[in-house]
């Protein structure tokens, strides 16, 4: 396959003074999945397309939490199609949460940069080359996708959802002054060691976990770059924003407000 060729021979020789070993950057995508048999092949296809078009060295680590819908079987087929050096299956027995999924995936990641994103097609891989460009431009520790800036935006949200999202974002900005415009999004690029450090420090779950990552990053003086993204709400499957989500978001927000 063409992408394999690209990874063996670096597309451009990049010599950086001050770096000991001028090795090529490699990007590991962590894809936690639960019941994503419809979306997984599509997201992987889009990822492979995006990476091989821009000649980026990559691997995709699929962390499936024992989905009953056969996501794992689909993942195994993808591994056969694209090769086990590109698609790494690192499943877990049962649903154990996002934070631990990242820890689990990180153990196997061989890239020096990590990309985290949702596997439900709401995050489009076409933005990854922009993330990488942004990271190099400012030598950032983290590059975060943002729905709230520039050409960023959403698709498939009704007025109520938009009001909740903008309102929650406004309150968060006022209370926490985080230095990034999209705290609850989860499409981000991290230096590997930065992500490792941040996960160690973070205690919350769900939406708040993504928020806490940025808040801790600010505390540890990591730099954050931002890239506007379009967020296309789940094509297949149910989008989740219930009363419970809002209550736990507010709880998490107040906890961070009082403790950081």
């Amino acid at each position: 396959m063409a992408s394999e060729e690209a990874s063996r021979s670096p597309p451009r020789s990049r010599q950086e003074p001050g770096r000991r070993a001028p090795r090529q950057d490699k990007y590991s995508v962590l894809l936690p999945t639960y019941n994503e048999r419809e979306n997984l092949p599509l997201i992987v296809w889009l990822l492979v397309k995006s990476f091989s078009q821009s000649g980026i060295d990559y691997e995709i680590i699929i962390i499936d939490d024992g989905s009953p819908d056969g996501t794992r079987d689909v993942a195994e087929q993808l591994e056969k199609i694209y090769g086990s050096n590109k698609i790494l299956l690192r499943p877990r027995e049962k649903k154990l949460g996002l934070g631990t999924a990242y820890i689990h995936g990180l153990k196997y990641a061989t890239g020096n940069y990590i990309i985290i994103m949702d596997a439900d097609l709401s995050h489009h891989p076409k933005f990854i080359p922009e993330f990488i460009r942004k990271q190099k431009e400012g030598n950032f520790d983290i590059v975060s996708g943002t729905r709230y800036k520039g050409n960023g935006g959403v698709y498939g949200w009704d007025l109520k959802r938009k009001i909740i999202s903008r309102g929650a974002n406004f309150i968060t900005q006022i209370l926490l002054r985080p230095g990034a415009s999209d705290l609850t999004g989860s499409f981000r690029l991290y230096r590997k060691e930065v992500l490792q450090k941040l996960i160690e420090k973070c205690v919350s779950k769900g939406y708040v976990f993504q928020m806490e990552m940025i808040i801790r990053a600010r505390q540890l003086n990591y730099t954050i770059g931002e890239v506007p993204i379009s967020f296309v709400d789940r094509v297949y499957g149910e989008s989740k924003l219930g009363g419970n989500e809002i209550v736990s978001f507010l709880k998490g927000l107040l906890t961070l407000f009082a403790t950081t």
Partner: protein
Amino acid sequence: MTKLAQWLWALALLGSAWAALTMGALGLELPSSCQEVLWPLPAYLLVSAGCYALGTVGYRVATFHDCEDAARELQSQIQEARADLARRGMRF
């Protein structure tokens, strides 16, 4: 210092400045017009902060981009992906 502590400090500072001025604790003889403005000032500030918040959120909701193009692009890529994967032997 936590964000909560920062807020409490700022509120305490402003609150005590306001209290000192309205109670005349500093021994300043403020003209009565100033007094009249000063007394309801916190309420005014609260109301204008509320208006600012509503205005900002409202404006941002109204200008939230609807990414129709992105959704269409994704749909066509999904078709392409399915066809390509099926050709490579993927069983959906």
